């Protein structure tokens, strides 16, 4: 199947309310950037899905058939963390799957809209020429929608997949696994579920404003919504250069400049955080060496400044030896920063300790262009919504130097950003930490 495209630039003033409204009206997917520098980055929106791929191999052949010079997106979609067992040797992982949303869903959209943050008066639009029948969007009406009224709402806490006791016990277990030589590090998370009366549209706007977001997502597929406020890049491919930017290490920001600087310096001198980042850098180098030449650590460490936290990360790049999406994904998936090291053993231990699947959480969401360029995030700090039910995870990397209590409290702090954006209070024993 060969798909063509027609692109044009339109003078239309836009804001995020418009982009998110289009997601809502046309079952769309919006990849957004909303950092403190409001002119930085661009937003990519696909509306009116006309084709769906639920496995990466048929997607692969479709991408190959349609390769061209165009930099415009061809598909937008995700791979769930739980898909890991389908991409590895059989028998290594258990049958842990959370079936709420499709594990792999890549959609081709009738229209792609690119909105540059540097110019809020112009949109670039692409309409695909599709060689089959589909229900088309009326081109004159695309932008004629008023934003949904914000009615407010409330959220009610339901549960955490691990109690505080269980979480702290699991931190101890991971430390035992480290001492016995099984792993060096594992990422332990817990899932928080709740009910909300907020509309997904309003949730998306509130979450967008909750932080500086480089790799944000607001996507709708039927009754399922993904709202991601991820700061982390899983992989970017530009002209056959692959870059991955794992994050490890977190310190709180402060309104007091002196404290803020002190926190940053403490982070930059933390042996624990630097070691954690170093091992993930070595792991990502490994994964990239499977499919790349000239693998290089570009910078180590780099400081990321978000509204409420500092992070450390690193850029690792390499020159791709393959253009096959499935091959690239199999080499890198799942991300090292959200699984552990060595990765396979760490994922097995995560299955044992987290008890439930992660679903899409810590999977990847992104787009692939006609020309083979792509960009994918790691779905952390991400909310999933289905008919008023919401869920999100919070967690952290556990090393030998981890303290169970502080690791648990860190999950409370990490959840806090989402919680306050959606007016949710974690009930039960965590509560005392939230009010501290």
């Amino acid at each position, binding site marked *: 199947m060969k798909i063509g495209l027609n692109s044009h630039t339109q003078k239309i003033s836009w804001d995020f309310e418009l982009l998110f409204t289009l997601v809502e009206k046309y079952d769309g997917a919006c990849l957004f950037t909303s950092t403190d520098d409001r002119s930085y980055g661009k937003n990519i929106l696909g509306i009116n899905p006309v084709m769906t791929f639920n496995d990466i191999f048929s997607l692969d052949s479709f991408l190959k058939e349609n390769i061209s010079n165009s930099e415009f997106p061809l598909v937008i979609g995700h791979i769930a963390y739980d898909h890991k067992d389908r991409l590895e*040797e059989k028998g*290594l992982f258990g049958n842990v799957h959370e079936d709420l949303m499709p594990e792999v869903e890549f959609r081709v959209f009738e229209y792609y809209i690119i909105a540059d943050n540097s110019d809020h008066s112009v949109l670039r639009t692409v309409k695909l020429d599709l060689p089959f029948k589909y229900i088309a969007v009326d081109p004159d009406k695309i932008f004629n929608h008023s934003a949904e009224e914000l009615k407010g709402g409330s959220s009610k806490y339901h549960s955490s997949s691990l109690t505080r006791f269980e979480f702290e016990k699991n931190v101890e277990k991971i430390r035992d696994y*480290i*001492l*016995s*030589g*099984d*792993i*060096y*590090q594992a990422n332990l998370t817990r899932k928080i579920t709740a009910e909300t009366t907020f509309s997904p549209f309003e949730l998306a706007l509130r979450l967008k404003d909750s932080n500086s977001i480089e790799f944000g997502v607001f996507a709708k597929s039927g009754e399922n919504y993904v709202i991601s406020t991820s700061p982390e890049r899983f992989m970017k491919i530009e002209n056959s250069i692959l870059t991955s930017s794992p994050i490890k290490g977190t310190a709180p920001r402060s309104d007091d400049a002196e404290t803020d600087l002190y926190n940053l310096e403490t982070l930059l001198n933390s*042996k624990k955080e*630097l*070691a*954690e*980042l*170093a*091992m993930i*850098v*070595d*792991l990502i*180098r*490994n*994964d990239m*060496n*499977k499919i790349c030449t000239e*693998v290089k*650590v570009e910078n*180590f460490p780099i400081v990321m400044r978000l509204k409420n936290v500092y992070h450390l990360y690193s850029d690792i790049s390499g020159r791709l030896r393959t253009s096959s999406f499935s091959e690239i994904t199999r080499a890198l998936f799942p991300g*090292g920063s959200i699984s552990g*090291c*060595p*990765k*396979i*053993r760490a994922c097995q231990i995560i299955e044992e300790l987290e008890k439930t699947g992660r679903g899409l959480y810590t999977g990847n969401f992104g787009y692939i262009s006609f020309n083979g360029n792509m960009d994918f995030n790691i779905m952390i700090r991400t909310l999933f919504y289905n008919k008023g039910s919401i869920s999100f995870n919070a967690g952290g990397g556990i*090393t*030998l130097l981890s303290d169970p209590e502080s690791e648990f409290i860190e999950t409370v702090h990490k959840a806090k950003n989402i919680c306050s954006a959606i007016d949710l209070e974690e009930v039960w024993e965590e509560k005392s930490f939230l009010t501290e």
Partner: protein
Amino acid sequence: MKILLLDNYDSFTYNLKAQLERCSYGSEVTVKRNRDASVFGQELDCLVVSPGPMTWRETGVLKELFVKRIVPEKIPYLGICLGMQFLAGYYGLKVDRISNPVHGSAVEIIHDGGRLFKNIPVTFTAARYNSLGIVSIGPGIKEMNGLAFTSYEKKTGNVMSLEHKELPFAGFQFHTESFLTNSGDGLISNFMELYCEDRS
């Protein structure tokens, strides 16, 4: 030369593969996982054993391969981390939990000036990723059970490398392939030159 790189389901194996390709010019490096029985029929001039999770006894087909082919055919063997621990364990040294586990940090290492360390500074830094290691080696002991101890961690005196006194077997406890290790390529090149030259 054909190098077989046995992968203990590790996450650093392909860094080692890239390093071997850099440092053994023109060699063909094949990666096989440690459950893969096809290794017994594999044509090989050198076996490199990756780091990996768990203990030296939990390394799949490695022991059988070592007994059936590596020792009788005197095939050069290089073990990194778990791969070194296998060598130690196989020759009867005690491998157990150590008192100073380190994961993802570089430590200072001092070597004895031997041939494996040609052109490597006497003190160099290398990444450690281990909770287990060779234990119960008193200070001043330079060899045991036919294995020579050729480098030590500066801070603790722990053994950081082994060389077999008669057979072409060596191992490093630290990670030559880590981006935190300064002299990794030099060490691998030395191993290839010393043990594999006549095979290439």
